[in-house]
């Protein structure tokens, strides 16, 4: 060991320290760091999914509560549009309006079955039933009828309108409109 002097030992030890430090900083630490970073990234993604799912779950619970609340209401969304067997109520409403405003009313054009009628351009499957109304009577009462018709609980869109008159107390109003029925 005479040749392996203290000076040489210093050199060997310093070299060993350098190799060890290089191995740790260039190999072992980056490997561990990479693994931990990958785990962190994966967890961040999972947490993001978790938050989304929690929001979805909350939304479902809210929806459930809303549906329960809606079911307790007297008016249901299904009532917004009648079924074919209930169209008679809408016709009666129009007849009632004509009677209220002292107008002579005749309804035309309602025919066919819901299945055979053209669909309305709506998200819900609805059938569009075109019809015509002819009113005879006072001009101002006819205007009241039209105004009331525009604000009924059920939707009936006026698609055409013409007024002919002999005098103000005797006008003829021809209306084209649509009923909407659930298919």
């Amino acid at each position, binding site marked *: 060991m005479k040749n392996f002097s203290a000076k040489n030992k210093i050199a060997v030890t310093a070299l060993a320290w350098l190799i060890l430090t290089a191995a740790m900083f260039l190999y072992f630490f980056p490997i*561990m760091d990479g693994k931990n970073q990958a785990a962190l990234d994966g967890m961040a993604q999972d947490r993001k999914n978790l938050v989304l799912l929690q929001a979805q779950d909350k939304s*479902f619970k809210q929806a459930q509560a*809303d549906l329960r609340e809606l079911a307790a209401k007297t008016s249901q969304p299904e009532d917004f549009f009648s079924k074919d067997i209930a169209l008679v109520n809408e016709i009666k409403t129009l007849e009632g309006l004509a009677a209220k405003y002292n107008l002579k009313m005749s309804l035309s054009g309602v025919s066919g079955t819901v299945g055979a009628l053209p669909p309305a351009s709506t998200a819900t499957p609805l059938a569009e039933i075109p019809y015509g109304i002819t009113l005879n009577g006072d001009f101002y009462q006819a205007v009241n009828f039209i105004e009331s018709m525009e604000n009924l609980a059920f939707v009936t869109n006026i698609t055409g309108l013409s007024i002919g008159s002999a005098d103000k107390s005797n006008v003829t109003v021809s209306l084209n409109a649509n009923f909407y029925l659930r298919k």
Partner: protein
Amino acid sequence: MKTINLLPKARQEELRFETILRSLWAFLTLTLASFALVFLAQFGAGFYLQFQAKAVKSSVADLQLQVNKQQNTDIKSQITAVNNLISDYNNLANNSPKWSKVIKAFAPLPPSGLKINTFNIDPVNKTVAITGLSPARDLVIQLYNNILQDRADFSNIDYPLENVVSPVNVNFHFTFSIQNKLLQ
């Protein structure tokens, strides 16, 4: 008191190197210890992260199961159906022009004595076509001016020349547009 080192020069140098070597060993030991500590800390952090990731994954799987339940699919379709019904109702109700407003806006415009025989609304072009009978030409011109001046409700009234040919008993007709805001 002065200390005199009587050892030979080579031995003195050897001793100095041994002192340095001891310090270096100490430094190496400290380095090794600190590396071990950092390595352990990284390992511990990795273990902790894996544990946490497992917990989060398990929560995600549980919630996924909950969210994908058939009951939730039913709720989703019920909500969609209700929303569709409401939006269809609103769209159809709001897209229906208020024709009564047009008639009410027009009613005060004909001058007294003039008779409107027909009043036709074209809902597609949003125009009104009227025909009538006037005892005098001036009343027809007055009606034209009244409609022209009611810019808030009507616009683009035409001026058929045949309306002013005869001085009395004039069969007239006009076509004009309805302002959009009148129909809302």
